């Protein structure tokens, strides 16, 4: 069996710098000036799983991303880690997409790529963390999906048995290929790129496709194709009392408990 596997990767701001993301309260825009970008961490797990399946069953791994021109770096990294080729969906008209428009655009790109057996996504990103793109992509492609996947096993024929994590326990799910699986932490330990792979990556192919290349309908993409809109961004409201007590431990503990009695009662 030889499989075409597609891995969806999103470029996100480096989480250690989230506190540097600032808000312009008048223009209602955020500034990410100088904040380094990385591949969304769970997407590395998705890529790792794809590479393992390729190693076991043979096949081809294609990384796809929708994003601004600099998202190219995320795909270069995916190639260095081991993807065979990569596609960047990049067009001004993709900007401002919510998850539905993102999923639609990715679906158009994937259709253009041709036959595939499996799509792997991260279960959610670290920046907006909706976890919606994977299942919505599956709906646009008319294929089944499973989220929170922590284990994948191939069955006879063209189906998989996967473990879907729950808050308390898990579900055993059988899914027929082609399918979309969104992977959660714990499925594997992502590898790092080797020096050899990084050198080799330079010769791998990266396609850059715009909206017309993938036959995307204008009113389904970007801001226009997005049913949800961001209508405001604001700093978190921290209207806590901030009564700070310093001094000998016994004394401040006593004061604190007295205040607790009052605050809980009101």
């Amino acid at each position, binding site marked *: 069996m030889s499989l075409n596997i597609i891995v969806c990767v999103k470029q996100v701001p480096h989480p250690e710098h989230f506190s540097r993301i600032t808000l312009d309260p008048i223009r209602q825009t955020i500034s990410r000036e100088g904040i380094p970008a990385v591949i969304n961490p769970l997407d590395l797990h998705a890529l790792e799983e794809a590479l393992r399946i390729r190693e076991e069953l043979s096949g081809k791994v294609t990384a796809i991303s929708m994003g601004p021109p600099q998202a190219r770096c995320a795909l270069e990294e995916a190639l260095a880690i081991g993807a065979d080729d990569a596609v960047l969906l990049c067009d001004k008209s993709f900007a401002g997409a919510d998850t539905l428009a993102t999923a639609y655009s990715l679906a158009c790109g994937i259709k253009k790529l041709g036959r595939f057996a499996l799509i792997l996504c991260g279960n959610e990103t670290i920046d907006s*963390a909706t976890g*919606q793109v994977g299942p919505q992509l599956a709906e646009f492609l008319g294929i089944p999906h499973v989220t929170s996947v922590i284990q994948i096993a191939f069955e006879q024929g063209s189906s998989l048995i996967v473990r879907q994590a729950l808050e308390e326990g898990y579900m055993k799910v059988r899914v027929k290929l082609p399918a979309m699986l969104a992977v959660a932490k714990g499925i594997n330990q992502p590898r790092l790129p080797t020096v050899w792979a990084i050198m080799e990556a330079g010769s791998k192919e990266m396609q850059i496709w715009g909206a017309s290349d993938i036959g995307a309908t204008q009113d389904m993409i970007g801001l226009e194709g997005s049913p949800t809109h961001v209508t405001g961004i604001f700093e978190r409201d921290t209207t806590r009392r901030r009564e700070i007590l310093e001094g000998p431990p016994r004394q401040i503990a006593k004061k604190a408990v007295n205040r607790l009695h009052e605050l809980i009662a009101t």
Partner: protein
Amino acid sequence: MNEVWVIAEQRLGKLMSVSLELLGKGTELARQLKVGLAAVLLGDKVRALSRQLVCYGADRVYLGEDPRLRLYQSEVYADLVAKLVDTHKPGIVLIGATSIGRDLAPRIAAKLKTGLTAHCVELRIVNEDTEKPQLVQVVPGWGGSLMVNIACPVRRPQIATVSPGVMTKCDWEEREGEIITLAVDVQQELRVETLEMVHEERTGAALEEAEVVVAGGWGLLSAGGFELVEELAKVLGGAVAGTRPAVDSGWIPEHRMVGQSGKTVSPKLFISVGASGAPQFTAGFLKAKVVLAIDQNPNAPIFDVADIGLVGDLCDILPCLVTELKETGLRI
């Protein structure tokens, strides 16, 4: 007028608490819009649960029963709910952001080509007296460092998911509701099929339902572990939780982590011990009634989100707190 709906979730015949919490919020929204509140319940032999849904606020329950609906089946559930929405055209649909709710909601929204907003921490109505009332959905972004308002101005329904522990359920009230039995016809061959649900019992008080949560952070290293936190939680009858480093150190299990990638809690009292107050952590207890924080660093950001802050070594302060609480017997 277009109803407000809650997609109720049951697992192995038991309602998830988030469904009742959503009925609490739904009651408020429906009242403001002057429309009815309905719940959708799918499962096998789950009719008895309808009564709970009604007594916690639903005016009407759409009930779909079939042996093949016993476990969550993503394709069938999404098809059924999407068709039902298409027929009855609710204005707002609320879904619990559990692992199953998060699997189901995006598929439904994509079928209906409408908007879906993930893990809202606040929902309110604006323009309620116009033709097109809007649901303002507030969500945390970038690890909780900023908040974002999201609206779905044109398409309907407006669908939102909400995490367990964020909203509050109403008090149980004896009341009558209408039960509408759905014709369930599961004929298609399933491309994706849940074969089995394995329930693993968790030890200790459930975090989301606890009235008191005591969370420890990396600062407990100096105390050699979690014992002091456990003692404090015990005196208050509360649940123990922690930050990411507390999980990574093996002091608490992963399912007791509070924050962006962990649990959201809204207890009456939240106590943070030896945690610096990273936004990814504090995003998990925005709605606690009272927050008490202990840290030796007077400039730790945790004090910005605390009602009462105690500056000092936790190894000294915690034993004093425990003694003091035992003496005064705080009732929560």
